[in-house]
Structure formats: structure tokens, C-alpha cells
């Protein structure tokens, strides 16, 4: 019996299984998720308007990116899940090739080569944020369960290549996050505890070695400044001092939209990109931050639910690890801006200005929506 025949029979209604999808799902739309995404995007635009110093051009271009992102999201949501599973290596390979091209075609900004200029400027590392969980989920779901040593080895290799390439840009923050994303797929994919234990141990050993051999001087400085921002008041510490002042002075209710002195008067650097949450916290206060966190939480919970409900291993793994990655981005960004994590260039999803981030983010959620709306069968309850 072919698959289409199987589906056709089920839909005739005389089967033991029933399609649980509502009418929106049948259009491959997860309304819950879509509304949360729209809410986040709007919040982001509102914050960006103020953080950019009322620069409507900037807001417009971000709006266009969101538009492109949503179109991509809705398009991707229509695609059959098995398509992603099969072609998962394409975005990965593409991303790695682009990373390889950076030393030749890249543009240097702030002392690091992260951008490629091919008509539009974008960051290939952003592509990997989606591509790695996608490839690993696809790879592991086809292997035996639990993953064998060989599977684990190849998986780690697949993660290590782009991580190394991103790390030498240097973009340590993204490298670590992408690595963690890859690892989380393995973790959710049933990585035996012995490997978990070994890897934790080796990480503990590697950390001091990394400190002395793996880190650039400025990266070390950033970590030092984390613990003592005053040590370099007008250098690396400046960002942290000013961003904590911005957040702290916001108080419970904030100074009001467009009235944050720290950001409006340029005390806060990077105010419309990585440090945008400081602007948001200054202008909307703790209540605003909690509101934003609640929106993120809603989205994360929805994604977790999608992951739990998914009936394929690939769907589960991708949805779960992508959610973790999404959470990590938020955590690292909010943590670094508020001074509990070192300053690594990690944008805040939906809020920070930046094209690649928005578009890849939406692609990822597009796949999640596809997972959410895949044909989902449940045993028909006889009792009814």
C-alpha cells in the first residue's frame, strides 16, 4: 500500500485512525505560533524605532526583512517534512561553503570577519543555526537507537567543522551556541549517559586550556570585564556599565517609549543591535522585560508542545533542539547585556536589528510549523 493510498483511506473515515488537525493546521498554519511570532516581531519593531533614535528607515528595512521572513515561514510550512529530512545536508553544505568563502570574500567589521557580501550582506554563521540541528536531526533519526559510537563520532564531526570555522572568524559566541545546538540534538536523540559524562569531564579540562591557548586577548578581556567592569571603564567595560545603568534606571515601569536617556543620548553603544534589550528595559522597565519574556516563553512552550506532539523522530529532535537553541540565544543575550555573561556578539531574536538573523530565524520556525501541521494521526476512540 502506497502512502497516498494509506492517507486516502484514512480520510475516508472508516479507518481506526483519525486526523486530529484543525482547519488551520490543514492549511499548514499553526495559528498559535503565528500570532506569537507576529507579537514578537511587532514588539521588536517598536523597540527598534526607539533604539535606533527614531530612525524610520531602519525600522522599514527591518519590517521588510520580517515580511520576507514571514513569507519564507509560510512557504516552508507547506513543505512536506520528509523533504527536509532528505535534503537536510543542502543548507548545511551551503552554509559551510559560505563560511569557507569568508576569508576570501568577507567584510571585516569590528575586527571580525562575519559578513559576506553577495549583493546583500549577510552572516553565513546564521544559516548554520538552522542547518546544524536540521542535519543532525535528520542524521540521527535514521540511525539506530540509541546512537552508536560511530553515529556520535560523525555527528560531532559534522558539528565541529562549522563551529571551528565560525570560531576562527572570530565569533566565539555563535560558535559555542551552534555547538551547543548540535550537542542538544545528540542529547535529545538519546546520547548514552557515558558519553554525556565523558564530554562534561573533557569540557571541564578543556576550559582552562581554552583560556590560555584558544582565546584572543580581547575575548579574555571581555570575560575579565564581566567580573570587574570598572577595570576598563572606557574600553570593554563601557558597554556593560552603560547597559546596566540603562536597565537599572528603567525601574519597574520604565522611562517611557523614546524617553530612555541612556540610549537616546548615545551612552549605550550597539543600542539597536546586540544591546537592544537595554533600551527596552530602560524604556519599559521590569514589567516590559517580564512581558517580553512571557512572549518568548509562550513561543518556547508552543515549540516544546510541537516537539512532544510530533510523531517522527526527526520532527521531535529538530523541534526540541531548535527550541533549546532559541532559548539559549535569548538567555545569552539577556545575560550578557545585564552583565552576568561575557559580551559575545549574540543578537536578541526578533528584537535586534539584523537581516540574516531574522530570515534564518523565520526559516527555522517555518520548519517547526511544518512539523506542527504534519499529518497527525491518533487512534479513533471506539467509545465515541
Amino acid at each position, binding site marked *: 500500500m502506497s502512502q497516498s493510498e494509506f492517507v486516502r483511506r484514512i480520510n475516508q473515515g472508516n479507518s481506526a485512525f483519525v486526523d486530529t488537525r484543525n482547519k488551520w493546521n490543514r492549511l499548514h498554519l499553526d495559528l498559535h505560533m503565528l500570532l506569537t511570532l507576529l507579537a514578537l516581531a511587532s514588539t521588536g519593531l517598536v523597540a527598534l524605532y526607539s533604539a535606533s533614535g527614531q530612525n524610520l528607515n531602519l525600522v522599514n528595512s527591518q519590517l521588510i526583512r520580517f515580511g520576507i521572513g514571514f513569507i519564507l515561514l509560510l512557504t516552508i510550512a507547506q513543505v512536506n517534512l520528509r523533504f527536509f529530512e532528505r535534503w537536510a545536508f543542502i543548507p548545511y553544505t551551503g552554509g559551510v561553503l559560505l563560511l569557507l568563502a569568508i576569508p576570501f570574500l568577507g567584510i571585516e567589521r569590528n575586527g571580525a570577519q562575519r559578513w559576506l557580501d553577495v549583493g546583500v550582506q549577510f552572516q553565513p554563521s546564521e544559516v548554520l543555526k538552522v542547518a546544524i540541528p536540521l542535519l543532525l536531526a535528520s542524521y540521527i533519526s*535514521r540511525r539506530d*537507537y*540509541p546512537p552508536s559510537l560511530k553515529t556520535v563520532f560523525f555527528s560531532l564531526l559534522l558539528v565541529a567543522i562549522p563551529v571551528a570555522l565560525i570560531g576562527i572568524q572570530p565569533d566565539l559566541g555563535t560558535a559555542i551556541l551552534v555547538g551547543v545546538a548540535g550537542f*542538544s540534538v545528540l*542529547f*535529545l*536523540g*538519546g546520547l548514552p549517559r557515558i558519553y554525556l559524562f565523558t564530554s562534561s569531564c573533557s569540557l571541564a579540562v578543556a576550559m582552562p586550556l581554552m583560556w590560555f591557548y584558544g582565546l584572543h586577548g580581547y575575548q579574555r578581556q571581555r570575560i575579565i570585564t564581566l567580573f570587574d567592569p570598572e577595570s576598563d571603564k572606557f574600553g570593554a567595560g563601557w558597554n556593560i556599565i*552603560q547597559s*546596566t*545603568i*540603562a*536597565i*537599572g*534606571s*528603567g*525601574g*519597574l515601569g520604565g522611562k517611557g517609549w523614546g524617553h530612555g*536617556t*541612556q540610549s*537616546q*543620548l*548615545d*551612552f549605550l553603544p550597539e543600542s539597536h543591535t546586540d544591546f537592544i534589550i537595554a533600551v527596552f*528595559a530602560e524604556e519599559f*522597565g*521590569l514589567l516590559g*522585560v*517580564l512581558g517580553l*519574556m512571557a512572549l518568548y*516563553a509562550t513561543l*518556547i512552550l508552543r515549540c*516544546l508542545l510541537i*516537539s*512532544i506532539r510530533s510523531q517522527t*523522530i526527526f520532527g*521531535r*529532535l529538530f523541534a*526540541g533542539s531548535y527550541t*533549546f537553541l532559541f*532559548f539559549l540565544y535569548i*538567555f545569552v543575550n*539577556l*545575560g550578557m547585556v*545585564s*552583565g*552576568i555573561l561575557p559580551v559575545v556578539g549574540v543578537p536578541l531574536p526578533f528584537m535586534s536589528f539584523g537581516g540574516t538573523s531574522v530570515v534564518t530565524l523565520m526559516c527555522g520556525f517555518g520548519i517547526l510549523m511544518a512539523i506542527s501541521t504534519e499529518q497527525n494521526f491518533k487512534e479513533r476512540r471506539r467509545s465515541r
Partner: protein
Amino acid sequence: MDHYRPFKSRQFEQQKFYTRLLVGCFFMAVLTAILVSRYYYLQVINHDVFMTKSENNSLLIEPITPARGNIYDRNGVVLAMNRPSFNLSIVSERTVNLDLLLSNVSKLISISDFEKKQFFKSLKRKRRPFEPVQLKKDLSEEERAILAVHQFDLRGSLVTAKLLREYPLGSSTAHITGYVGAINEQELKTLDPLLYSGALVLGKSGIEKKYEQNLVGQPGYQMVEVNSLGRVMRELNKVDPVNGKDLHLYLDHRLQEKAYEVLEGEKGSVVLIEVDTGGILAMASAPSFDPNKFVKGISHKNYNLLAKSSEKPLFDRALLGQYPPGSTMKPVYGLAALNEGIIDEKYNIYDPGYFQLPGSKHKYRDWKRGGHGHDIHLNNAIIESCDTFFYKLSTLMPISILHKYGTIFGIGEKTGIDMPHEKNGIMPSRDWKKRTHNLAWYPGDSVNASIGQGFTLATPLQLAVMTVGLANQGKIPVPRVARDKNPSLLVKKEVEIQKKYWNYIRKAMKDVVHDPTGTARRINQGIDYEISGKTGTVQVIGIKQKERYDIASIAKKNRDHALFIAYAPSDKPKVAIAIIIENGGSGSARAAPAAKEVIETYMNLYSINSNESKKQ
């Protein structure tokens, strides 16, 4: 289906997935809790700390300088005002190459080394970023135009407007208005920091100094928001300054200029007082200086030139110059002798041209060789200025009486004028000589004092005040420079003297000008009113007993001082004047004609008839 898995394995896998997902959720929950507590810590617990830091970052209080009050003369002609001046400043943060900019600027307009030095000095001082530093003050219109044309390659230069004090009449009113200058470090310590937070200048002398409190005004302030570079972004909470109060003086600039003019080429002083009010109509000291030079900041070289000049242009002779009053004291001493009953109108002497104290061979000479002859009464003694009469009088009248009347008429005491400084002068007495010289009073001292010489010293202002007292019959005023809303005479002392004695002395003073024998008779021509006065000629060096005073043979600096006091019109005095010309020769030849010129000007301007017709 591509892959088959045992059903059990699949269920196991799902179970394990949920467990691991749960572990992940647990981590996420913990991390979220950390984040929330961090933001709570920053935004609620430490909110005050960060709010303060944020305000320190961005708020700045800037004082706004109030406009200094103007100074007007009695007719509303401005004596001191604020005029917009344009300064060239450099914002060093906006320059690409400071040295290049400076050399470019100096190619266009002249920048002195002094200005460059000052610029680099203030550049090194602590200041806000983007705060302009002044390079050249008070650009001319031409310089402004040149700079405007070349603005494109003078990046970082800035022309700013500021109010600059200006004294339109310049040197003629310099001693009265005084001048303002930059506040120096010492003054800064004593000034009220609130009142002077925005002020750049301070009254240094004259009326500018005396009425500093009225003129300075109340500074305003504005709270401004600055950005991280220190640039002012917007104004918050502006409190406007209260401008300084304008000041109106009794002074008439036409009389002041006239007074200054009659002193031209001489050293000396003219003080003209309105009899009804005690107001200073004119008070000139020559030579003078240009107060405007002090406003812009005078260089050391130029200052020294003024300060060390033998002519002493910075010295206000009207208030600080102390001169022997000479014969101008005679009317007062005459009044004293009559009022105290020492002599009467019939008392007369023979004047051989000199006087000798009993038992002494020293001859106190009269100014007139050969003397004034027989029947010299008190009135003749005043009209012809007979010294011998007063020498003789001094043997009858103790110094205590001279001192009493001299003091009543204001000699030896501060007049109380509203100016920052004035000198006391000296009205000698036994006590005074004992106190200052630790010597007894000799009869010879009285002889010298009787003609206003010896120890006696008076400022031109004191003489003018004394003249007012003679003009209004005994009311000695406190002279005023600034005029209040209801001008009235501020009487310092009043002396009771019998009317007939007043008439006698005032007649004699009128005859000084209008009698054919009067010492000031040469000024009675061509006037349709009467002037009462008294000349004075004061020896600067002692003449040896057998020598003659020969004007041609002595150096200018040793020549006599010429003095004249007068009031006019004689019957209803409106104005009193005292004039002194250092080394000017005789009072009758030099001082009286100069005084007449000033009185003439007053009469032309304020003659009662024309004044009343103007009012109507």
C-alpha cells in the same frame, strides 16, 4: 518507509526523549529564574543607584548669564551698555588638525601671539567635550565676513555672539562709570557663587563696582541633556535670568564732556553738583583712559603703560586727589570768624604785603607784592583774596574754630558719595597734629592753615560739596552719582549761621566775579546771570624768603595749582562747581575761566526759562 524500527525501541526512544526534554526544560527554568532575578536586582533593588548614575550621565546644569544693567545719564543717554560682540572659538573635537586650522585662520585674520597663548592655556583647562574655546574676541565685521566665506575649510571653528560691555563716551566718563573686567581668582573666592555662576565680568571700579549688586542681575539656569559626547541635546527646565537693573545717574553727559574738555591737556579735575539735589552733574578727572580697553582684556604691556604713566590717567583725581584748598577756604573761615564773634564787618587791617608773627622775623607774604593797602575788611579780603588779613585773623581765631567750620563744610571727612573709593583729605587740628606728627601746634601752623595751606588737604569733590553748602546757606549734602526715583537733597550736616553773615559772605563771593577788584573779574563778561565764586592759587614748592615767584622760570610741575569754586546763579543757586588744575598757574587766570565755560554750558542747557518752556 525507509527505516524500520522495532516498535518497542520506538516507544523507548519516545520515553527517553521526553525525559531528556524535561531535563532541558528544567535547565531552561533555572536559567530563566537567574535572568529574572538579575533584572529584578537591577531594576527594582538597585533602581535608585542606576537612576542616579543615569542622571549623572546625561544631565548638566548650565548657568545663563543675565544681561548687565545699563547705565544712563539723567537724559537717558547711555553711558554703559551691552553690545553684541562676535568671538571666534574653536571646537577642538571637531577639528581634523588643530595646528593646520590655526595657521589657516591666521592667514585670514590676524591672531596675536597673546591670543594664541591664551587659547592654548584655556584649551588645557578642564572642560566639557565640544565646549568651544575662545581664540579671538570681538571680531570686526570684515573679519566675520572673511571667516564666513572660508567657513568650509575652517572645520571646527565657530563664531559665537556674546554681550560685551561698552562705554560709548569712553574716556570722558571713564572715572565715573568705571569698567568691568574678567573675574580673577581672588575675586572668585569672595563672590557669591550662586549669583556669579554665569557671570564672566565684574565691576572693577566706579559706578560699575559700587552698584555691582544692582547691575549684575540674577543668573538663570538651564538643565540640559547631554549625549555621551557631551553635546547639548535639548533644554530641560529652563529658568530665565533676571537681567540687572538699569541705573540712572544725575550726570549730564554734555556737562561731563564739557568738564572733560576744559581739562584737556591738563591734569586736574572738575566736579559739578546740582545744588537742589546734591547730584553729581559732572565729575571729570584728567587725563583719563578708555575703559573699553579693559573690557576686552588689556594686555600687561598696555596696562603698565597706563598704570606707570607719570600723568596717572587711572587715578581719579576728583575723589582721590588731595590738594591744599588754598584761598577757596576763605569764605568758610570768614563765616566762622563772623559767626563766632571774633571779628565784625567793621574790622579792618592795613596790608603791607606780608605778615609777621610777634617776635618772629619770618615774613608770611601776601600773593600781591606791596600788599592790598589800607582799610581791608573781610569782604575785601575775600574779593581780592587778601592773605595778610587771614594771617592776622589766625592770631585771633584758634585752630579749633577753623577745624570746626572746615569739618562742618566737609573738609577732612568722607563725603559719603556713592563711589567705591574716596579720600578723607585733612582738616588739621591740635589733636590731629599730635596724633599724626607727635608735635605741638605752632602759631605758624595756624597762619598757614588760615589760607587753606600747610597741612590742609581736600579733594575736588569735597570742595564742590563745600561750595554747595555755601550756595544753599549751610546745608552740606551727601553727593550722589546715581539718581533715585524722587531726587531730593540728602543733607549730611546743617550749620546755623546768622542770615546777615550769610548775606555778607555771599555778597563778597559774588563780588569776586562781579566787582572790578575781584580776582575772578575777567569771567563776568558776556553773561546774563551772576556767578559767585572764590579763586585759589596753591603753592607747590616753597618760595625762599627773598625770591619772587616767577612763572616763566619754574618748571611746569612746580607751578602753582589753580583752583576755583563757584555757584550760579548767585541769588538762586542751581549749580556748584569746584575745579582744580594741577600746575595750572593762578586760579583767576586758569581755573575761573574753565569753570565759567562749564557753568555757561549748564546755563545754556538748564536756564530756568527754557527749562520751564520745555516742560510745558
